[in-house]
């Protein structure tokens, strides 16, 4: 019943043997104990489970792990700087109060890290559009949008006190 599959996760070669129907999100969480990838809807709408596969941000709840032989996968656990400090967007989220309960946060960190790596000069509207695939129920997006602005070098809305 189980099928072996090998891929690289956060720079480390991993091999697992899982049922073909098992979602990448479940394999990351249950088989590889990388529980930072959160499952919020299992239908590709909330974005909490976002990971980077071969450079692209994808919903791990919409992929089967067995599809990904040979892939390079980065999860939220592998996204900080190599010296262990928060990356630019993570730091901006901290500075701008971009998280409360923290459940949607890994998906937002992964999505925006991937987005900012590919988009050197986004506008304010571009950033909001880039965030539109990630749902958050705590923050009203205020701190998240500001974090994206900070990370992209755009002016932060100071009515939100996160920059203090």
């Amino acid at each position, binding site marked *: 019943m189980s099928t072996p599959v090998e891929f690289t996760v956060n720079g480390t070669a991993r091999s697992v043997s899982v*049922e073909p129907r*098992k979602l990448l999100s*479940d394999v990351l*969480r*249950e088989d590889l104990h*990388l*529980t*930072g*990838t*959160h*499952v*919020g*809807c*299992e*239908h590709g*709408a*909330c974005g*909490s489970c976002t990971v980077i596969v071969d450079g692209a941000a994808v919903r791990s709840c919409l992929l089967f792990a067995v599809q990904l032989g040979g892939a390079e996968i980065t*999860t939220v*656990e592998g*996204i*900080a700087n190599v010296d262990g400090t*928060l990356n630019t967007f*993570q730091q901006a989220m*901290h*500075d701008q*109060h971009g*998280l*409360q*309960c*923290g*459940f*949607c*946060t*890994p998906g937002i*960190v992964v999505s925006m890290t991937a987005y900012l790596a590919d988009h050197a000069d986004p506008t304010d*509207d571009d950033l*909001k*559009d880039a*965030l*539109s*695939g*990630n*749902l958050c*129920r*705590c*923050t*009203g*997006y*205020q*701190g*998240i*949008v500001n974090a994206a602005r900070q990370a992209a070098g755009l002016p932060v*809305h*100071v*009515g*939100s*006190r*996160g920059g*203090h």
Partner: protein
Amino acid sequence: MATQPTTPVTAGRYVGQAVKRLEDPRLLSGHGRYVDDVQLPGMLHVAFVRSNVARGTITSIDTTAARALPGVHAVYTAADLNPRVQMFWHTMLGPPPELGGVTKYPPTRPLADGDVRFVGDPIALVIADNRYIAEDACDLVDVEIESLPAVIGIWEAAKDEHIVHPEKGTNIIDHMAMPEVPEIDAMFAAAAHVVSRRFRQCRATNVPMEPRGIIVQYDRWAGDLQIWAATQSVSEWKASAARLTGIAEPRVRVIAGDVGGGFGQKMMMTRDEAAVVMAAHLFAAAPIKWTEDRRENLIAANQAREEEIDVTMAVTADGHIMGAKIYFWEDVGTFPSGSGATGSMAMGVFPGPYKFPVILPGNTAVFTNTVGKQAYRGPWMMETVAREQMMDHVAHEIGMDPIEFRRVNIVREEDLPYTNCMTMVYDESVSPNETMEQAAAMLDVPSFRSLQAAARAEGRLLGMGMAVYMEPSAIAFGMLSSDQAIMRMDPSGKVQVAMSTGNHGHSLETTIPQIVAEHLGCDITDVVLIQGDTASSPVGPGTGGSRSAVIAGGAAQTAALRMRDKILQIAAHAMEASVDDLEINNSVVSVKGTPTKAMPFFQIAPMAYMMPEALPPGMEQGLEITARYRPPGQFTWSNAAHACTVEVDQATGMVKILRYIVSEDCGQMINPMVVEGQIAGGVVQGIGGVLFEEMVYDDDGNPLATTFLDYLLPSAPEIPDIEYGHIVKLSPSIGGYKGMGEGGAIGAPPALANAIHDALAHLGVHPTRFPLGPSQLLDLINNASV
């Protein structure tokens, strides 16, 4: 737009400062620990078979094929679990009448027994090696249900033609007839203006991004029940699990860890979690985990906001409110938490910031064959939704500007303390008028009116709306009365404080250390909050109801001051100085003016534990302090005013929010960044409830919004930058704190609805019913008659 200048915050080294959150790094890096992250050796997984019929008789359940599936360990139905339940009620609401309490409950059965009463009603519970197999087994459980007509909608239910709960004999769970007072009728008859409206808000649901979840491990040999759960209140769940199983309460441990949002949905244990507790107690062979999927969350986790209010208001010729009659209707679904009814609270708060000489209230709450009602951020907030829209409707009818009409009637500083006509007392620290004027100034009403006129000349529809409200924060009675801080300075001189609270977004791991460090005189990183684990936390209310700043903060502050006192006594004795001559800075006690004569905490703390002879005579060893705090009032009132501007697209019915302004008074802010974060989250939930979110049932009781493609949450592009103003009047509670966690969700719906109304009123459109999405607004515009 900058944050407005405010009454100066009495910022200390920590209290009043926008300290960045101590809990962030683990959450930003994927190292939080939510319930589904917990994996125990040998753990098995639960899935539910749920009803796809709203009301019907179960004629047979066949679990044979499911039990035979490899990997399935047990399939339980009502016959297995329900008879084992000892008691099922909630500490916060008290026992049911048959056990001496006053709270009405729906029938309390974990699994559907003999009949089903809503789509999503749990019928059977499968335990299997993993969730995939458990769901396969659910498909193999053969349930035959004979459908009956579903009771859907408040008006249908109130007829009592079909009964949701046969045990109750009626669909009406809560009812108070409106008193008949001829003098008031006469007053209404003689009034210059009498205006009546019926306002409706639509069923919405909390939608924490983390669905519900629970792991239960029963060790039959030790007799211990250990639970990991996505809960807002570990004390409440510990007591619930003990009552359900009959296990002695001290043998039950509940651990919350990080919780992915609650907003009221995770306050009280529901039937689903109770079924898992009962299944683990019966099964006993392994820990079992249930992680809800989003579809289950949308159809089976309790919901809110299915409410209507009839308001009739009498007003003098010059715009003074003479009185109101209000009748509150609510749909509490099938299995609400307790009665689910919020009528008495909503009517008590209805006067809000205005001087109503008299109000005649009445209410009816009904069961329907839909998922039950529970608390959702500001559970009584229909009063503000109705009152604040009514203020605009009345102003329009009598030809007054809505803000001017509010000015005539609002409670002002000189009126305080003020007892409203429902006998609620606003102390001298409330500031509804000040917040309203601040919000109006931030909006710059004259400029907006020019902009609006210019836009209208171009055929564009702009509008502005205001909402003002009083928030009864930190409700302090029963289980909610108080919280305790169990504070310990370790021998290293660092401090831990244990509380009943939990981490589901409130930032308490930062704000409680801010308070402790401020009052103890140490560095914030030397203070650690331990919460959400009954093994270390005191009995307390948990986190919810805008209480933590006031009640948990008050307990932490009291404990810190007691700790400080003991430390000073030890140091004074050791340094042969008077306590009055000592000061504490950066964890060092020193003699004022003689900084060389000093003792750091790391020297005092081991002395307290290990050098009894060095302590003042008679002093108990150790640095362990407890403090339980109850605020002076049953409510700690905060208040706020919201103002917003919108543009409505006449061709599409789309609403674009142009500006959103909140002026609030939550007393002494512990952390302005956290305050503004709480406001923003509430505001956007409120916006969602007007523009996007509606949980729709069809006439047969089928839920029609079962994914995020149907139940629409606000996302980043729809939300403007929110502007904040702060008025600071210290509350009577220690520290001057007031709760404000719910206010955003209370004020936003009517402020936004009023802005839409203002944009459309000249077309003859006067909305009274949510949602106000594109299709509803197009209908209103197309059917309007000026």
